[in-house]
């Protein structure tokens, strides 16, 4: 598959991002508390989230894994890998279709 060989460095960089992602997405967020400007604005207005659909892997967690930081970190990486694979699969289909 040409996609893999041609973009080996880029794919490696993506793998590195996924491996370190729990440092930022799980452990860092837990230490500091994840709070982005959108939350600040929503709080100021008293808006509250209503969850209509939380996804198959809600907030990048794997259902069934326990809540300690190691499992959460593993779950975060697994979620990331699944997301990347889904996107590459869609891309692969488009690559094939665009060659016709």
């Amino acid at each position, binding site marked *: 598959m*040409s*996609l893999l060989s*041609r*973009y080996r460095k*880029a*794919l490696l*960089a*993506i793998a590195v*991002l*996924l491996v*370190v*992602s729990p440092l*930022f*997405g799980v452990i*860092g*967020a837990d*230490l*500091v*508390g*994840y*709070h*982005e*400007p*959108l939350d*600040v*604005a*929503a709080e*100021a*207005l008293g*808006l*509250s*989230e*209503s*969850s*209509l*659909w*939380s*996804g*198959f*892997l*809600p*907030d*990048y967690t794997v259902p069934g894994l326990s809540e300690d930081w190691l499992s959460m970190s593993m779950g*975060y990486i697994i*979620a*990331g890998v*699944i*997301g*990347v694979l*889904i*996107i*590459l699969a*869609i*891309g*692969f289909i*488009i*690559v*094939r279709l*665009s*060659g016709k």
Partner: protein
Amino acid sequence: MHIPDGFLDPLTAGVCYIVAVIFIVYSLYRTRASINPEIASMASILAAGIFAAQMLNWPLPGGTSLHMVGGALAGILLGPWLGGLVIFIVLLIQCLVFGDGGITALGANVLNMAIVDVLVGYLIYRAIAGKGGRPHRWVASFLGGWLGIALAGIVCGLEIGYSPSFPYGVAVTVPVMGLWHLVLGVIEGLITAFIVDYISIRSPSLILGGVLSDEPTLQV
């Protein structure tokens, strides 16, 4: 800045959906002729990379976090139409698989990140990188990444702040979103500039939306 369900007035959500659908259909139309396996491979890798980069939430002192959005980067590398579609795919997967960004807010999230951020980043890059060499490209992609995210934040503030039942909400949300993203967007600008610089030195042919080659750009 992924808006969850429940933040938007139904009218706002609906209008954003219409704008998003029009943009996506038009982008598909604009990219249809030029898409080939090579460009599609690049776009796929970029989409996967932006998805992975968005998983890194940077906690900042003062208790605010941000993660990269990458819209301006996609616009600079792939042009506004394919770049917008790349961000759309990322947002769609985040929404459907991970519940990141609400289903009812998908239109608004597409408008902010796949349209505003991409277009602003692309246009600023085109305007500044125009004739210059590496320093121009650096400044152009920095400003594109920075102001793209700042403007996306302001539009996001308009969306969540506007509601017929609470007409003055925007007076609160727009300054909050605008100022924060103007500050935090500096980081997005730096990352955008480093990546564009790296790619333009290593493999300039990968910058399709830019002005490095004399050929007319493929997407625009």
